[in-house]
């Protein structure tokens, strides 16, 4: 294999493909590598940790076809460190040679035969608007759990809802639900659980245009331009989230999104060691308070419109800021039942997104 490619093109392609590379090779050392396959002028780079595989295609000046597995992190670091301009990569025997200008590197290759083969999904493909999906993922993925001890909660539920698609994620403290009306991707009643890590990576590569989705029995493949992302689906039953959403909310706060986020950023400086931020809800506005024993306290008043019973409700400031940041528009609403029941954060302008957040018990 031998080809020439512009450094910046190669850096970007390696940066994307290596995001799926296993951090530790584990049982399959070849997974610490990125597979490079050159046919003509088309180079396809693949990284995989078996659960997630990312393939990126780039146009290069090909000189000799071939396949090789290069050590992923090392190759990415080398190419990134080179001077701007053309990078030459050539495979000879057990070595991959990377050169540019007066810099030359030789790296030991990994056995290409050991690299797992990715089965092509035979499922029908559907097309989604990339920008809309990117926005939905930005809003929902944040609520998924990172705790591998509860694998179901590390996924995002993609379910058919009416004539569209619904995305749902929860880490048991908060729940994010986003509807994409008109995005008929799944059959009626069909639902799949996609790892949030994969969707986070998908969100990074989504820009404009369309994304093609193929849903297999055990995996899902998303194709965006020259990037193909294949992820294993999570097996298991997602919690019955519908019953968690209160049907009525007697109390409703309407507040500017940016002023609330700014106030939260300031006040949470004094919300240390899992200290919650308390919000005093009253007719003429709200007051945010954080008190950390032996450290200090912060207070901030904020203009807002509140209809309902005066109360003090407390939240994990990170989770609250996550929800407020995720909604679209200039104003958000915070709907509550009481200080111990889940609150709902929504946009004033759109009902397509809902962020349900459990309060923190305070004395």
């Amino acid at each position, binding site marked *: 294999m031998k080809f020439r490619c512009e450094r910046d093109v190669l850096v970007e392609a390696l940066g994307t493909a290596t995001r799926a590379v296993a951090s530790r090779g584990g049982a399959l050392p070849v997974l610490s590598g990125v597979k490079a396959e050159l046919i003509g002028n088309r180079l396809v780079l693949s990284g995989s940790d078996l659960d997630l595989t990312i393939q990126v295609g780039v146009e290069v000046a090909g000189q000799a076809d071939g396949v090789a597995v290069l050590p992923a992190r090392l190759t990415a670091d080398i190419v990134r460190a080179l001077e701007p301009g053309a990078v030459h990569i050539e495979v000879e025997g*057990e070595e991959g040679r990377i050169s540019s200008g007066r810099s030359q590197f030789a790296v030991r290759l990994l056995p290409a035969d050991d690299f797992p083969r990715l089965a092509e999904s035979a499922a029908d493909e559907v097309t989604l608007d990339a920008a809309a999906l990117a926005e939905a993922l930005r809003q929902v993925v944040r609520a998924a759990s990172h705790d591998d*001890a509860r694998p179901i909660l590390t996924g995002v539920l993609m379910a058919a809802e009416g004539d569209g698609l619904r995305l749902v994620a929860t880490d*048991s403290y908060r729940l994010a639900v986003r509807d994409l009306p008109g995005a008929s991707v799944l059959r009626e009643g069909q639902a799949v659980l996609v790892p949030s890590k994969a969707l986070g990576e998908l969100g990074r590569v989504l820009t404009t245009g369309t994304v093609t989705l193929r849903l297999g029995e055990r995996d899902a493949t998303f194709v965006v331009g020259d990037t193909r992302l294949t992820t294993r689906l*999570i097996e298991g039953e997602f919690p019955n989230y519908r019953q*968690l959403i209160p049907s009525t909310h007697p109390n409703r706060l309407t507040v500017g999104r940016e002023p609330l986020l700014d106030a939260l950023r300031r006040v949470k400086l004094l919300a240390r060691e899992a200290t919650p931020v308390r919000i005093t809800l009253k007719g003429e506005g709200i007051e945010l308070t954080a008190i950390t024993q032996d450290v200090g306290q912060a207070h901030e008043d904020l203009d807002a419109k509140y209809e309902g019973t005066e109360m003090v409700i407390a939240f*994990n400031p990170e989770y609250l800021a996550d929800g407020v940041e995720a909604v679209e528009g200039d104003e958000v609403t915070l709907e509550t039942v009481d200080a*111990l029941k889940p609150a709902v954060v929504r946009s004033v302008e759109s009902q397509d997104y809902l962020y349900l957040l*459990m309060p*923190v*018990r305070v004395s």
Partner: protein
Amino acid sequence: MRLVIATCSVDYQGRLSAHLPMATRLLLLKADGSISIHADDRAYKPLNWMNPPCRIVEEPGRWVVTSPKGETLTITIDEVHTDVSHHLGVDPGLQKDGVEAHLQELLAADVTYLADGMVLVRREYPTDIGPVDLLCRDGEGAAVAVEIKRVGEIAGVEQLVRYIERLDLDGRLRPVRGIFAAQSVKPQARVLAESRGIACIELDYDLLRKVERAEMRLF
């Protein structure tokens, strides 16, 4: 596990050539079929090794280890100082913290968490392949073997299956049913457990500790 301390030299032929000159080293042969050669430094890291499956041919003064890809590790032995073998059995796995032991202690203190009417017979009930975490009797007097894990994986289910097989040999206990208890049970482990008639129970550590969370959960 076989431990050999020997004065030896080692030659590797494969993707490259490597030579370890004559010196006293530890040769570690594990039951999984691997071999590794260690010096008295580098912590856990061997000087050279070959992963299973590999074939080891021992001749007087010379061992030849061959991998399926044709790589060879030739160990030329000048003198064997020690050659001992121990059967280690099935390893219980790495315990990252004390949660597993604490879960066992908490459950032993109140086995009705597992089912109403359950009573504890003994913690660490011995079998000839190792102790099962809890042995209980259910409300109807039937023996119940309980294996406790922080994260319930297939290996834990298989471990419990082996314990049940051993306990079932005891006429005073037979038939023994199993409960696989973990803070979370992986879906594959749940499928395997259910196929073997073993019940899975997810444990709430905070509930067992009677810790009231300030941060409440949706479910």
